[in-house]
């Protein structure tokens, strides 16, 4: 009887100890802790959701089209009909701001997901396989990280050509995967040596199963944090390229392009370039706050580094 009860007592003690150390936290409970402790992160999340909803439901929120011109009301100051005024072609500034959010959020989120997946897979393979595979993947990553990102983005836009610049989101994954791969590789290297991986190895579990079922889930918290912190970079990069005239082309609209076209009227109508700039700043700031908050609860080790 004693022999039967002792393992359960041991398990309970270990669980209690783990709970005390905070090791038993699931991602869900950590996010709950974030929501109750970090109000700034919650407000940031609300701002992001609000802007995303406004972008999605833009056609319902405004009576104007984003390319709808009315030269009779060009360069109007803010009024009841046009809350943020109109641009040089008589297009409603607020409408363009709402539609522009679609580009910024899409370019921020979609390529970042692709770069996360690419970086995670390559990082896992490099860290787990080691040897030549690791050397080749990491040296390619070093080359990518050596490039000034904006210049590399410009080269990729050049390759895509003027006709394909609507595929703006394509440039980012080529650059960002390298940083993700480095983080995932370093985590894989340490996880590879852990006892549970050793145990899985010893009972003959396939390598791919070990990588994706046992190691990958442990990298997810860091990936969530990296995802949130990489989005602002992608948004700033898109807006910079559109500002330089190499990104989204007229009559399309993006916040960077709006800031650039509004620059001509900076002295007479500063709102035209400042409104989209403030919008970029708000979204970037919100993602930064959210990323910081998530890092605190999901990846305290990364925070300490």
């Amino acid at each position, binding site marked *: 009887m004693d022999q039967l009860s002792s393992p359960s007592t041991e398990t309970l003690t270990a669980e209690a100890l783990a709970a005390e150390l905070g090791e038993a936290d699931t991602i869900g409970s950590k996010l709950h802790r974030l929501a109750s402790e970090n109000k700034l992160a919650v407000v940031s999340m609300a701002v992001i959701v609000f802007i995303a909803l406004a972008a999605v439901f833009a056609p319902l929120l405004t009576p104007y089209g984003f390319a709808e011109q009315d030269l009779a009301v060009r360069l109007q100051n803010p009024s009841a009909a046009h809350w943020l005024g109109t641009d040089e072609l008589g297009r409603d500034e607020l409408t363009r701001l709402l539609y522009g959010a679609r580009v910024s959020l899409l370019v921020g989120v979609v390529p970042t997901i692709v770069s996360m997946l690419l970086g995670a897979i390559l990082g896992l393979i490099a860290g787990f396989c080691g040897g030549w595979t690791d050397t080749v993947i990491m040296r390619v990553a070093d080359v990518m990280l050596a490039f000034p990102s904006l210049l590399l983005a410009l080269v990729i836009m050049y390759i895509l050509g003027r006709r394909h610049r609507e595929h703006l989101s394509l440039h980012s994954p080529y650059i960002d995967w390298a940083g993700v791969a480095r983080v995932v590789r370093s985590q894989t290297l340490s996880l590879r040596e852990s006892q549970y991986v050793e145990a899985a190895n010893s009972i003959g579990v396939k390598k791919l199963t070990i990588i994706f079922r046992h190691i990958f889930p442990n990298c997810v918290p860091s990936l969530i944090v990296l995802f949130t912190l990489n989005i602002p970079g992608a948004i700033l990069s898109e807006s910079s390229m559109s500002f330089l005239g190499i990104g989204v082309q007229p009559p399309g609209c993006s916040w960077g392009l709006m800031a650039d076209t509004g620059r001509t009227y900076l002295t007479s109508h500063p709102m035209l370039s*400042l409104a989209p700039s403030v919008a970029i700043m708000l979204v970037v700031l919100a993602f930064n706050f959210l990323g910081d908050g998530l890092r605190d609860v999901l990846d305290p080790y990364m925070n300490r580094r």
Partner: protein
Amino acid sequence: MFRNIAKRVLQTIPILLGVALLIFLMLRIIPGNVATTLMGEHVNQESVKRLTAELGLDQPVYVQFLKYIFGAARGDFGTSYYLNRSVKNLLTIAFPYTVKLALAAAMVAWTIGITAGIFAAVRKNGILDHLFMGFSLLGISMPVFMVAMILQYFLAFRLQALPLEGAVGFRSYIIPAIALGWNSAGSIARMTRSSLLETLQEDYIDTAAAKGRGRVGIITAHALRNALLPVVTMMALQISSLLSGAVITETIFSIPGIGRLAVQAISNRDIPLLQGTVLFTTVIVIAGNLLADCLYAVLDPRIREAK
């Protein structure tokens, strides 16, 4: 230490070769014939063939790459298709403008960043701390063109205190330097604050306090020396990123630097010029990273004495 530095220098050679190869290959996968693009579509095939041969584009790709890499090692990046001048010559003219802008921006970033970081750490959780850290976060989150336009609007247009654009004289660099350095100042301030706070927790700081040293003396003579180590590395890294990140600032303020040259190369589909500007800037970034590593090894005795 010298062995470590030599090893680090050797490690950069394959990276440089990889960067050169990647740029070369990327700019050659563009569909269509470069000669046709340059001459227009309504030119006879004979002329297109002649130009293709003149540009050396009829040779095998590996021959083109080897010629390019040996040329680049000697500083010969070819001739600009559009401007019909040697790329080396164009880079030599543009580089001083970019260096001046980057150095001025670095001065702004370091002065504001380090000062704000120190005050924020000393007054931890006080009004100054929240104020400076709020500004640093704004600095990190604001696009460069936004800072540039705000400064242009208030300082150049409203107050008419400084020139709106151009690169003539010291005064014309003030607004571009603040615009470019603003973002880096934010990062430096955050790094200085966290590093100084960490150093102030060390035992030797308590020892200095126990010996009767004043607060200012402890911070300036004891804490800052160690706290600024990671900041110095970050500063070295920032120089290269400022040099490479000046693209937008140079375009807004019409400064004829390397960034503007790269944007012009893209607009004119000028492959040799684009290749030259990107490779040149990347080499500078790699050199900056190398310098940061070496500087850290020289400044930190733990790394200096490691075998």
